[in-house]
């Protein structure tokens, strides 16, 4: 029988956070190990919507309040986590966690992250205040609200929910079974006034929808506690939040859902419903948006201001009145997105995929096709074709355990060709002990020499890829052969790539600087 380990988790109580949190917890539950994981959730006074979601997913109610979470007896738990945007480790019993090795590793990472000044210093000091920073950093790293808790991607959370909330397929929605519909949520009565879009604007959208898409019924939805007034032109109004099962059913099956950045958008995703048209104002579309939704953002203000000031949700910093970001969204903009949603022309806004890394051989000259693929990689910002004498090229080689920029003329490859094998052997040995570096072998070098002799060598036949510091990134062995054979002035065709580089040795910097000294008039 499998052992059971207890995990205590504190979560924010809004619907979006709970859904994202549950998705995260389910991914943890799937981790392989010799123990079953039992979660206990802590949050402050969850509303009926959240309670219903928790009951469905966990078959249990919330275990306690935030105060009780703070006073937990640690001995009872293998791990205690505070889940806000990121998981923060409060306690970890490493011995118990050995039963689930991946969770042990994650726990240690969360602990390290929480203590890492570089990453989360501000976050630790004041979470809400740090959101404008943290969310921008996470977006920059390609993270979204849904997958931010999966810090290093171990849990495989991307841009889709792995949990699937369900709803009763036989529920009577008061709409004919074969009729399609569009759902709308206005959130007029939500406490955050800056995120709201004017009901009149919604009504204009509804009027256009009715004329352009008469076959669709329009259903207005609301969350429990909200008391949105019915909009003109809707066929069905479920704004009192009482018909929770109906709301779920309609959200799951609506052809398009139109909403501001609210919990219902997250709920629709957790129900694996279709696309939503989401009106973003003070919150970040890059972070809170989903890849297959359509984010609409006005042009009045290009800085999202969530938590930027203490009154961000009630006072617009630009107009000091109505939020100009929301006011600048027009019904036409919304309709354009609705049309896109119908035609399924959805541009992914989140989790942009990186192109695969391209590796060049350290031995032979790269082929033009390989160079073409190499320069298209993320992180290479430009390239140009130039010709340089071999004497101006460098290689990245090891000076002791430190990688340095070394002139090609002094490289281990040249010395090997000159008959001094010691330096090359040393280079092979050090590279063998380093992580993430290309490893050399004498056999491959010898094979290259033989092959080039066989094929014939022309003075202009060597191509390399090099950085702005003239450090060769591909084809360094062949360049060494050319230099050895044709002399230091042999022209080498270089594809110069502009990218970030770390290896620049100080002595070389000084050497290059000396060359420039001649230019100096003083």
């Amino acid at each position, binding site marked *: 029988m499998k052992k059971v380990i207890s995990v205590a988790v504190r979560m924010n109580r809004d619907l979006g956070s709970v859904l994202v949190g549950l998705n995260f917890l389910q991914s943890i539950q799937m981790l392989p190990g010799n123990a079953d994981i039992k979660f206990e959730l802590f949050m402050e006074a969850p509303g009926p919507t959240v309670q219903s979601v928790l009951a469905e997913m966990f078959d249990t109610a919330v275990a306690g309040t935030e105060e009780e979470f703070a006073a937990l007896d640690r001995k009872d738990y293998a791990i205690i986590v*505070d889940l806000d945007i990121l998981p*923060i*480790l*409060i*306690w970890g019993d490493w011995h118990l966690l050995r039963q689930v090795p991946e969770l042990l590793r994650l726990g240690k990472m969360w*602990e390290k992250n*929480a*203590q890492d*000044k*570089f*990453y989360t*210093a*501000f976050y*630790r*000091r*004041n979470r809400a*205040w740090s959101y*404008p*920073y943290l969310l*921008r*950093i996470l*977006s*920059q*790293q*390609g993270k979204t609200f849904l997958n931010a808790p999966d810090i290093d991607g171990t849990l495989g959370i991307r841009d889709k929910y792995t949990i699937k909330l369900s709803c009763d397929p036989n529920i009577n929605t008061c709409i004919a079974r074969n009729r399609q519909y569009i759902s709308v949520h206005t959130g007029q009565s939500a406490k955050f006034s800056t995120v709201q879009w004017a009901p009149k604007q919604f009504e204009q959208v509804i009027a256009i929808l009715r004329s352009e898409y008469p076959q669709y019924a329009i259903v207005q939805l609301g969350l429990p506690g909200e008391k949105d007034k019915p909009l003109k032109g809707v066929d069905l109004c479920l704004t009192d939040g009482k018909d929770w099962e109906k709301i779920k059913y309609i959200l799951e099956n609506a052809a398009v859902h139109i909403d501001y950045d609210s919990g219902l958008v997250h709920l629709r995703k957790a129900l694996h419903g279709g696309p939503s048209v989401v009106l973003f104002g003070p919150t970040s579309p890059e972070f809170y948006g989903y890849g297959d939704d359509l984010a609409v953002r006005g042009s009045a*203000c290009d*800085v999202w*201001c969530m938590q*930027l*000031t*203490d*009154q961000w949700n009630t006072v617009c*910093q*630009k107009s000091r009145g109505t939020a100009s970001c929301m006011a600048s969204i027009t019904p036409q903009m919304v309709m354009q997105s609705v049309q896109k949603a119908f035609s399924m022309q959805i541009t992914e806004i989140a989790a942009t995929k990186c192109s695969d890394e391209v590796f060049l051989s350290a031995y032979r000259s790269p082929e033009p096709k390989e160079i073409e693929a190499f320069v298209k990689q*993320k*992180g290479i*910002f*430009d390239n*140009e074709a130039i010709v340089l004498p071999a004497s101006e090229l460098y290689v990245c080689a090891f000076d002791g355990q430190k990688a340095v920029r070394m002139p090609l003329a002094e490289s281990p490859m040249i010395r090997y060709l000159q008959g001094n094998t010691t330096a090359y052997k040393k280079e092979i040995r050090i590279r063998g002990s380093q992580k993430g570096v290309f490893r050399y072998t004498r056999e491959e070098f010898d094979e290259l020499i033989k092959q080039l002799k066989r094929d014939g060598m022309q003075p202009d036949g060597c191509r390399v890829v090099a*950085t*702005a*510091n003239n450090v060769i990134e591909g084809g360094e062995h062949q360049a060494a052969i050319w230099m050895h054979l044709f002399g230091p002035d042999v022209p080498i065709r270089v594809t110069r790539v*502009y*990218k*970030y*580089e*770390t290896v*620049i040795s100080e002595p070389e*910097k*000084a050497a*290059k*600087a*000396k060359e*420039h*000294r001649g*230019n*100096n*008039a*003083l």
Partner: protein
Amino acid sequence: MIADLIAKVKIWLDYKLHKKDFTQDAIRAVADLHSGSREYNHRLHALSIIHWCFLSLFRSYASDKWREKKGGQLPDFELQPENVNIGILACGGIGDFLMLANYIYLFRKKFNSPCVRVYLLYDRNKKAVPSIFGRDLVDGLGYITHGELYGGFHQKFDLFMEVSRFPKITHLDSGKIATTYPELAGFAQSIQAFYYENKRQLDYPAWDGQAGLVSIIQGKKRIQQMDFDGSLGIAEEFVYPMFIDEDAQLHTMDKFGLHEKRLIVIVNDADNQNGGGRSNKVWPRSYCDIFFEKVSKKYPQYTLCQLGGAPSGEAYAGVHYDLRGLTTLEETKVLLQNAQLLIGCEGGMVHLRHALHGGPSLVLFGPTDERFFGYSENTNLRGTGCQTPCEWMYDGWTTNCMNAVSNACMYSLTPKVVMEALDDMLEETRVE
């Protein structure tokens, strides 16, 4: 006399015992320990504190400066009780000082009364202060350490404020101001009201980046930021007439052999506080070598002159004059004013050229936001590698990078991109 002596001893003791920077630093260090996510046992906490204290033996604090200054005098401004004496502490780097000079100039214009006296105190950039604040802008300039200042010295003024991004009042004799110069009372009140509404952005420099974002939303540039309610009418244009030493004005160009040369000034450096040459603001050296070599060949009619602090390496390829570490601030002003163009990373020298109405600059932006720090007369470049300026977003933002592609902001500003911008500027005849 005895009362005076007792007051001095009290201030001294107060400073020595409670108001030293070391003490504040220690409080912060302990608070940091407690704010960690994992509660350690008290022994580990104690060991961490001991470790921190041990390291402090080798740190430099205001108390060291106090000892250095022993026997020295605090600034003596001979404050007259019939005047409204306003003290201002200048904070930040040269760029911040320039903004402050403009602020004080417009403040004095608005509250133009012989009874209003403004005194400037500073605890850094000793050499730059007289050159920026000049002779007539304030009624007195004085160097003081932070500890000395808040050891009671600031209370000598009727109104004392620190000005970094925003003005923040740290001492106010509201009764005296209300009776002597009531117009100023409303101004002080609005500063205080602003402080209570925006405490986070005024109390901790870590939130400066967010204050900048709020300003962008409000359509304000850095120069306008401290005029938070627009009461001084600060615009993007620098109105304070920055003076230049006559001697420097007359002789600088000849001294460096630059007379009648069409000058492009290069400044690609950050102050040591911001990481110096290692700063993320600085354009990569390899790019500079390639770019300026190309510029010197393509535009031989221009003379390339590199400015900056003491050189840490040799000048960039293609540079004709390497004046790093060789110019005084007055001479730098002359060069900035006479140059046809400035090319460089965002920093104090770009602001100084703007203040001198020197003409356009080609400014390369990385961690800081061009919408906030950029000027309309300049070409403000941002690379495509990173669209999120990260100023103050995390500890170590000046030298570390959070982007998945390291330093993508500056590395994506390739020589080609900058050359295209330069070509545009030179062809548009924006540069004469």
